[in-house]
C-alpha cells in the first residue's frame, strides 16, 4: 500500500528482500568477472556456467538466492525466470547445440539424433552460420528475426 493510500510507507519486507536477492541472480548472468563470483564458484561449485545449489550445506542467504534463480519454493514463484531472456546478436557467445536460443528447447534435445553425429558439439551459432546454414553461408546483414530464448543459467 502506498503512502497516499494511507499506509505508513513501510516497505513490504518480503518483496523488498526478494528484489534485493534477485539482484544477485541477475549479476550471476551479466557480471561474472568479479571476485565475488569466484568466491561463490569456490564455495558451491559451477557446472556449465551455472552455480551449484549447494544442497544442505548452503547458507541461508544462498538457499534464498537459489530459490529465486530457480523459481522454486515459497520465495521463487518463477518471476525471475519469466523476466530474463537470452538475446542472440552475432551468435559468438551462444552454443548452437546446447543453449536454448531458439525457443525453450535446445537443438541438442530437439535433434538428438543429429547431435549424435556432430563432430564439434560445442560449436557456436556464429561458427555454425559461417560454415553455412544460410544461403551461401554468409553472415546476415542484421535484418530479420534473431533468436532469443532462455539459455541455461
Amino acid at each position, binding site marked *: 500500500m502506498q503512502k497516499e493510500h494511507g499506509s505508513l510507507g513501510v516497505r513490504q519486507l518480503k518483496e523488498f528482500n526478494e528484489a534485493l536477492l534477485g539482484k544477485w541472480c541477475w549479476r550471476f548472468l551479466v557480471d561474472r568477472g568479479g571476485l565475488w563470483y569466484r568466491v561463490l564458484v569456490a564455495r558451491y561449485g559451477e557446472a556449465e556456467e551455472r552455480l551449484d545449489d549447494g544442497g544442505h550445506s548452503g547458507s541461508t542467504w544462498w538457499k534464498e538466492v537459489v530459490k529465486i534463480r530457480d523459481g522454486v519454493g515459497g520465495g521463487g514463484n518463477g518471476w525471475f525466470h519469466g523476466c530474463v531472456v537470452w538475446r542472440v546478436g552475432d*551468435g559468438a557467445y551462444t552454443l548452437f547445440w546446447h543453449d536454448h536460443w531458439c525457443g525453450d528447447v535446445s537443438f541438442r534435445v530437439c535433434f538428438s539424433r*543429429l547431435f549424435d553425429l556432430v563432430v564439434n558439439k560445442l560449436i557456436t551459432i556464429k561458427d555454425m*552460420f559461417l560454415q553455412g546454414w544460410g544461403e551461401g553461408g554468409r553472415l546476415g546483414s542484421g535484418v530479420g528475426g534473431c533468436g532469443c530464448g532462455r539459455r541455461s543459467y
Partner: protein
Amino acid sequence: MWKEELLEGCRLLLLDVSLQTLTYDVWQWLPDPSRGYSVRGVYAMLNAPEIPQVLHDVELIWQKQVPLKVSIFAWRLLRD
C-alpha cells in the same frame, strides 16, 4: 531416410534466423531491456496489485442505474 528429414526440419527452423552482426549475445531483463535489473523496479513489480478480475466485474455489473434483469443477465453471461 531419417537423417535427411531431420536435417530438413532443422534447416527449416533456421530459415528465419538472421544473426545481428553488430550486437553481442546478451542477457536481457524483459521488464526494462535497456537498463536491466533494478531493485526498485522489481520491488514495484512484486508489489503490483494483480487486477482483481471478479471484483472489477462486480463493480461494472451491479450499478443502481442498471435494471436488475440486465445486471443478472450480465452476471450469468460472465460466469458461463
